[in-house]
């Protein structure tokens, strides 16, 4: 009979779509909310350190890095997609920010290299933001629009996030300046003591050297005389 056949087809189709929808929802719930990793690490001289992250296609990501201490405060940075194609490559950069959208699923890799430096090790800070922040309420009924109070809260939250971000960068710049000042302080201390010692040694040495010239001449003249 035609009716039970078409009903069966409808049920099958609904079942298929339901399964896909559920799977899609699961994927969105799990891979949708992104994460942010903020890490400060020390990069020894002639070393390279790499970090990896699995990113889903279409996710907007931002990589920001800043060198805090060491040498000329610069580092090489390189970001590659899962196929090895280089998305971002900069040599000897002090601070940069790079935003990209993941074009394919897979493991993205970014490396910081200090291989050009022979004896200074660097401290590098990076902030890798993947996707959006997880929602405050992992609730199912998020289809209702936000009230005015709630949207005001959301905009204050975003503004405070940018304040914290600026604060972080300010703190890093201040750490950079402070490490330079402390270096300068110790260098001035060692240099002034060293310079004073050298001065004394050289002046006393000069006098004795000069005296030794005249002493030798005296003995030779007396020998010639006798």
């Amino acid at each position, binding site marked *: 009979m035609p009716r039970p056949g078409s009903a*069966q*087809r409808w049920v*099958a189709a609904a*079942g*298929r779509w339901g*399964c*896909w929808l559920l*799977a*899609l929802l*699961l*994927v969105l719930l*799990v*891979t949708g909310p992104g*994460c942010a*990793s903020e*890490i*400060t*690490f*020390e990069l020894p001289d002639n070393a390279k350190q*790499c*970090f*990896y*992250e*699995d990113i889903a296609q279409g996710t907007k990501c931002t990589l920001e890095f800043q060198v805090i201490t060491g040498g000329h405060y610069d580092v090489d940075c390189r970001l590659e997609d899962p196929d090895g194609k280089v998305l971002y490559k900069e040599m000897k950069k002090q601070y940069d920010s790079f935003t990209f959208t993941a074009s394919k*699923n897979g493991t993205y890799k970014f490396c910081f290299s200090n291989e050009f430096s022979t004896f200074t090790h660097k*401290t590098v800070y990076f902030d*890798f933001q*993947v996707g959006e922040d997880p929602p*405050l*309420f992992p609730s199912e009924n998020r289809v209702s629009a936000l009230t005015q*109070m*709630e949207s005001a*809260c959301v905009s204050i*939250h975003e503004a*405070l*996030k940018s*304040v*914290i971000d600026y*604060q972080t960068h300010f*703190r890093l710049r*201040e*750490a950079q*300046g*402070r490490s330079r*000042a402390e270096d*300068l*302080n110790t260098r*001035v201390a060692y240099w*002034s003591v060293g*310079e*004073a010692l050298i*001065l*004394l040694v050289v*002046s*006393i040495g*000069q*006098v004795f050297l000069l*005296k030794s010239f*005249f002493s030798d001449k*005296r003995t030779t003249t007396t020998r010639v005389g006798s």
Partner: protein
Amino acid sequence: MAGVAGMGRPAVGLRALLLLVMCAAGAQGLYFHIGETEKRCFIEEIPDETMVIGNYRTQMWDKQKEVFLPSTPGLGMHVEVKDPDGKVVLSRQYGSEGRFTFTSHTPGEHQICLHSNSTRMALFAGGKLRVHLDIQVGEHANNYPEIAAKDKLTELQLRARQLLDQVEQIQKEQDYQRYREERFRLTSESTNQRVLWWSIAQTVILILTGIWQMRHLKSFFEAKKLV
């Protein structure tokens, strides 16, 4: 019949999608590779009374299968946290998957060091570990759904609580900034003083040695009857 045949193809695609979901759920964000005996340190510059939560997960490299094993029981990581004065705040051994927490009592640079304790793994020479790491500081460490459930807050109250936490973190950071700026100013003033005293001392030493040299040489030449 048509329904049964139709269900075959989406089921395969569904399995692939579920696999992707499971992979995504298993991955804990950022990861990096370390050697077995290698120690990796991270620095966190934080104000005082700030909570830091770190989550990590390790995977061992299997040389035969050329793949990272999903989980290796018996593999431990030693976590050591030092405060800005070099004193050890936390030094504990955790399993292959762990979570460590500490609260800072002095503002400054805290150092978090991780190394694996695998001595038996030394048999597999050249082995490497994949470490998934996630460090959350201050307000980011709060778990808001948990707080909402515990204190029974409405959505608006929870949002207000989040904003309060954020503002508190900004305030702490500003206080820390003031303390750091004072240190910076003391260092600069000390350098200024040192340069001032050094230049005066250098000039004095120079003049004194010059005078001493001339007098010494004059008496020497007079003794040698050359003058």
